[in-house]
């Protein structure tokens, strides 16, 4: 039995009529044609599908679209301000923080949620870019294998 959901994605309101078993990832990729979040494992183990829901990172492949009712979703497509990359995106480019890039949108969204909670994680350093430098060093190693455990 289809149900209607209302959610906000990257600031845009969407009212949709969907199957109850549709995942948030399915809604984003198939219904809204936002292809940035990727499916790599389908069981919430790898983080390639990470988007931000009401400020928290979620694995969109194991969140039902109906759970997103009334929520604000941020995806990689909404991160840049017009033509200006978000500092995290810039930092990923400047630090060679990706190879094949398949998990990069999910990794960046995880990092963004982390920095939202924790805007100055490294003592005395200048916010995002520098703290991201540290994360990049970690991610450099894992990004091809991509299994970025969020914890």
């Amino acid at each position, binding site marked *: 039995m289809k149900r209607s959901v209302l959610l906000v994605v990257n600031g845009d309101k969407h009212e949709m009529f969907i199957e109850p078993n549709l995942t948030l990832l399915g809604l984003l990729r198939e219904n809204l044609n936002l292809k940035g979040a990727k499916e790599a494992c389908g069981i919430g183990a790898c983080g390639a599908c990470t988007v931000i829901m009401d400020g928290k990172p979620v694995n969109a492949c194991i969140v039902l679209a109906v759970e997103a009712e009334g929520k604000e979703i941020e995806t990689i497509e909404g991160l840049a301000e017009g033509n200006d990359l978000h500092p995290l995106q810039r930092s990923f480019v400047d630090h060679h923080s990706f190879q*094949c890039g398949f998990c990069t949108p999910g990794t960046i969204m995880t990092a963004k949620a982390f920095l939202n909670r924790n805007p100055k994680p490294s003592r005395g350093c200048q916010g995002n870019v520098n703290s991201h430098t540290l994360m990049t060093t970690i991610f450099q190693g894992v990004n091809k294998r991509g299994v970025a455990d969020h914890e």
Partner: protein
Amino acid sequence: MSEFRYVTKGINRTDGELIVTGRAMYACDMELPGMLVAKILRSPYSHARIKGINTDKAKGLEGVKAVISGADIGYRRFSFIDTPAFPADQTPLAVDKVRFAGEEVAAVAAVNEEIAAKALDLIEVEYEELPSVFDPEEAMKEGAPAIHEIVKPNTTTAWEDFGVPSSKSRPYKTVNNISNKNLIQYGNIEKGFEEAEYIREDRFEIPSTSHVAMEPHVAVASFQPTGKLDVWLTHMGYEHKRFWLAKLLDIPISKVRVHKTYVGGAFGGKISIFPFEFIAAYFSRVTLRPVKIILPREEVFAGCPPSRRMIVYLKTGVKKHGRITAQQVKLIDDVGAYRRSSPTALYLAHFFRNPIYSIPSIKHEGYGVYTNKLYTSAKRGHSLSQMVFAVEAQLDMICDELGLDKVEMRFKNFRKKGDTLPNGDKLRSYGLPECLKEAAEKIGWEEKYGKEKFRGLGIGTASMFSGAHNFPFSSAAMIRLNHDGRMILYTGQTEFGIGVDTVMAQIASEVLNCPLDYIVVNSGDSEVSPHDLGNWLSGGIFVSGEAVRRAALDLRDQMLKHAATGLDIPIEDLEMKGGWIIPGSDKSKRLSFSDMSRYGIQMAGGDPFIGKGYVKCVPEVHFWKGKYNKTASLSSGKGRFTEAYGLTLAIAHVEVNPETGEVHILEIVIADDCGTPINIKSVEGQIMSQAVMGIGDVLYEEVRISNGIVMNPNLLDYRVPTANDIPKISSIIVDSYEPNGPFGAKEVGESPRAAVISAISNAICNAIGERIYDLPMTSDRIKRALRSKST
């Protein structure tokens, strides 16, 4: 390196913005109007005769557009290797019987995934189960269940199509499940062992590991009413894909277009053709609608080939001072249900490690053996890691037995720069001794070795081709000048994580001495780019990059020649700099590249200025209409393979908890001879990612198969390293210059993984003072080894 302007620099990826905004288009992102979704029914049995398939109910389901089984497709055979001696043994859908659990039996194309899945449930297959054999050494015995009786080619083989000199294709009769074998010998093995003062014999076993490319396997196919096939694939080079799609569908190669896609990792796992790709194309042809197949991760694990399972019997003879006199290898490649690349693997297992040590006498015999398990294939350094794992482990054991210094022993046996290998390959660059020297210093070998309880040090080595003489045997590139003075560079290289567009632009910019953004790269489109070797056997930079360099040189020469005529100034007086052609005698007469485009059109009869460049993998190898020279043989190892070898040496420092068996890697140092690094940052990234992959190979990873069933087909049960597992990893690029490579560059994308695997595993064994012969070295295995030591 300072004389370079663009090459060697760690320039940011020119397509970086595309990736970080989620705009890079992967095959799984492709949408086309009216696109159908296809799904595959796979065998639950590891060995069974198919007595009948009824697809009527599935066909009757609303929304289903086509259903096929092996009976519709018949014996259209394909394989990674398809030679007259080893003809292709696999079909896209099982015809008469299934040979592994997970084999493709039938497929459905429907308007959406849900309907396709429902339709699969409605397909009725009647199986008659047959006895299975899972252990390759059992499978080789008389009386074991026969998996393939006889393979009868019904077309020419791929090698005949490629023009490789060989006899006509003939049936392959399988005896004792042996799918293929090879024998490589040189020196005098008996005499070599007679001269030895110490001989060791050991057995090692290496399981399959998955590539875990983050993007699962995907095919999107769109067959046009005009007879053309457009495809978007997860791949590592379009030539093999379009060759096989054309052959299996009986359409001209030129009518198959492999479009550019970003590929979410490959590591050898996406090479050559797969059944699902044929199925997507076939469905598109019969429905005249675009068709998409995305394999779920479980099907990638249980239906697509992981790395090769190998058993290595190794016998080495040495003098008391450590010089190796002879080495004998018996290699058993447990190929699974289909042979795929095993003939290649068996010879690569020898040749990838041949440049490391100078061993006067070698006997290397290999057997590919069919079993009723998931078939296997290449993974980053095809067979290299399996072989050097065994060789380096045994060298460490020999050193322990004879009280030899492990560093010195390796120095004593290394080959030398300028050496010619027994098959004629030359080591024009050879930085392995420098790698060992620098890595040992960096990690503090002398200060630490043997002085720390439950800590250990281990060395690993590796070498790898820089491209090999395989179809299409050469790479070419084109570069075209535009009205604005910018250039479009066409290369067939595929982007699956190596930064192709960036490094190729760096090479062209270096030659043309123009800003990097003057070069727009169009890569990986089979209809636009000239032929290309593809991104496997590590020929990307050495072969295709050199083709780009030569194309840029050709364009440069054309522009300078016309500039000299146009300005009436001798060509020797002209210099290219910063996107200008500048006469040394009168700089005010300088011409922009845009001026040259106009000159070509207005004054040179409309000349568009197109530069072309091409490189043969091994120039001296050729075959054409009965003329041939130095053609390589997979079975005997004779003939030339490559023009340059990349080399790696890794040292790992680990700590083992004797109570829990847990390994804590303290540090890994990887010294690499890749010649000139074209982009230092991407070279470091390549090395880093292989170190991480190697950690997984040693500590955790194994595609566990029990009674033919893959037991861990998902990313929760199949553990790979995550951020918390990454130790301090340093890379050292030793000073080296490969004379035949573009600006002195050669391979870097495959050999570090093998070196890291050996280094970590040797370090673990050094830490616990006991040898473990099998991978992975899990905490359970380590605890067992420690227990056996104490009893």
